């Protein structure tokens, strides 16, 4: 198991390399020469050359990349062009809010999807199944910002059940934190919930028709035991694959959701930075997003291996 994790981490190295190269190139896509912007009117060739030398822009591209990479590894992610705040600091300040939002959204989507999908599969063709299917279609087709607005209007503005906006760190007041994260997490997680529910349902139906389910019944296992012990673990294997793919979607969706809910997370920082053409911050965020995605998929693979012993770690 440890060997497997180490090997997986090793395999991440080439991916990480490509990610950093991509992110590094991002800054070169920005139009204009930084020296010209910094110098304004006093752009003599000498001054430009001095600044190029100061910034290391006279070096070949790969040397620039290595210097940049060295800084990244040492935690120096540069400074924001607009606020002059260190990028690493700006992102780490916002990261807990996004992590909380993303995790709660994921947990919400699974809490809805797995029980509902299971019930729909066990009682397929019933009214419950049809209602669940209806909800699913709605959940997938309605964009999450719209779900967000409806949730704010109904549950927050009208019924005053949940606060609107504002983030309370989990460490300060866990309960209040969850109350604040509930609406944005529901908005962010619903589309995933709908898809996961469909997958759980179809996977469950397939598994329930397999021979080993009949074996379990022949042992005298109750229907409940058959469904939740014998079938569910098998049925979840394809669902986990889909969840792995959704993590990218959650990072992406966080950008919109955080904006709708004025959630002080990395997603909103991304939006602000894009509007301000704050390339250093955008660079940092892209880097963090790419690495989160890689780590999340590693975790998914580990869960996958735990669910299905036929997947060998060796």
């Amino acid at each position, binding site marked *: 198991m440890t060997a497997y994790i180490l090997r997986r981490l090793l395999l991440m190295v080439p991916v990480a390399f490509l990610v950093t190269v991509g992110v590094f190139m991002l800054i070169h896509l920005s139009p204009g020469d930084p020296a010209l912007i910094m110098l304004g009117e006093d752009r003599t060739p000498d001054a430009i050359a001095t600044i190029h030398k100061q910034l290391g822009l006279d070096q070949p591209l790969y040397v620039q990349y290595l210097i940049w990479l060295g800084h990244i590894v040492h935690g120096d992610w540069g400074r924001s062009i607009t606020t002059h705040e260190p990028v690493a600091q700006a992102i780490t300040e916002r990261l807990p809010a996004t992590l909380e939002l993303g995790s709660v959204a994921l947990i919400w989507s699974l809490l809805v999807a797995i029980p509902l999908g299971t019930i729909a599969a066990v009682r397929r063709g019933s009214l419950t199944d049809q209602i669940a299917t209806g909800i699913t279609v709605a959940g997938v087709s309605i964009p999450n910002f719209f779900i967000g607005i409806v949730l704010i209007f109904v549950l927050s503005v009208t019924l005053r059940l949940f606060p609107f906006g504002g983030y309370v760190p989990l460490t300060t007041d866990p309960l209040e934190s969850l109350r604040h994260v509930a609406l944005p997490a529901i908005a962010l997680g619903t589309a995933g919930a709908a898809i996961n529910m469909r997958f759980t349902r179809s996977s469950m139906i397939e598994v329930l028709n*397999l*021979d*080993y389910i*009949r*074996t*379990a*019944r*022949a*042992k*005298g*296992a*109750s*229907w409940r*035991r058959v469904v939740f012990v*014998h079938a569910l*673990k*098998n049925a979840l294997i394809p669902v986990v694959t889909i969840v792995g793919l959704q993590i990218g979607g959650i990072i992406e969706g966080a950008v919109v959701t955080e904006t709708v809910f004025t959630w002080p997370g990395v997603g909103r920082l991304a939006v602000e930075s894009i509007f301000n053409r704050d390339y250093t911050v955008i660079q940092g965020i892209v880097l963090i997003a790419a690495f989160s995605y890689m780590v999340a998929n590693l975790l998914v693979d580990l869960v996958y291996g735990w*669910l*299905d*012993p*036929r997947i060998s770690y060796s």
Partner: protein
Amino acid sequence: MAHLLELEDVQTHIALKDGVIRAVDHVSLTIDPGETVGIVGESGSGKSMTALSIMRLLPRAGRIAGGAIKFKGRDLAELSEDEMESVRGTEIAMIFQDPMTSLNPVYRSGWQVGEPLRIHRHMDRGASIEAAIDLFKKVGIPDARRRVTQFPHQFSGGMRQRAMIAMGLSTGPSLLIADEPTTALDVTIQAQILELLRNLNRDYGTATILITHNLGVVAGMCDRVAVMYAGRVVEQGTTDDVFEHPEHPYTWSLLRSIPRLDAEAHEPLKPIAGSPPDMLHLPEGCTFRPRCPFAIDRCGVEEPELEPVRSQLSRCWVTQAGRSLDGAS
């Protein structure tokens, strides 16, 4: 002696889009304690459906439409699902055709084999796995202590079937239903599994219903045999009688269609003409008539009942009228 299991006129219907199939049609059969009874027939003859009716594990579209399944004085067809769950896996165990797919791939073999003990005897996990180790030894799985920690995919086909048998025996049932237990296995492994079943029947006195399409298996294993065709029992009797002098043309044809070591050299095999009937559109009269070399006029009009013919029971107008099947072609 009271029968252990008595099927009385059991009818099982399966509702399909195009109509209702009478998969088990007025089947009556008895099994005594410690006895081994074979049910033979082609695919679709209703032998597996008979077994699944006894276990009340029919597919969604299936239901027991009539008759009684008396087991130790209770009618299984009348039991509630809860009551039935306390019969399955304790009093009656069942093992299935394909050991490759009959074990759950995500749980350890010992966990699965010990599960009936946890469900029915309220054993804790540790004790049930210890019991599984003993059971593995009984069914001849070497290195039992290590094997219980392995997953089904780490077992060979024969080992899996042994594990299935161990699972079935865990609670000491009085009846074991084996549905084509050797069909999916290599010939050499088949012999081992049959030997195992025979020994268990002898050592523990577990009555066994052996479902198979293989007459050789029946000859080697069973005290009595019921031959099924199109959902009906067409012949029933002791294995010796039925093999010695079949009284139904279907059994007669089956016996002539298998190769025999003691046959005259170069004697050709005689396959049964025609194909099994369409269960949705059964022929008038006797269901075997279109393929029967002995058919008389009456066979196309009226369906015969299962009546005594010599020492066995046969559903055939020809033999019931006293004609012999010997010497015909």
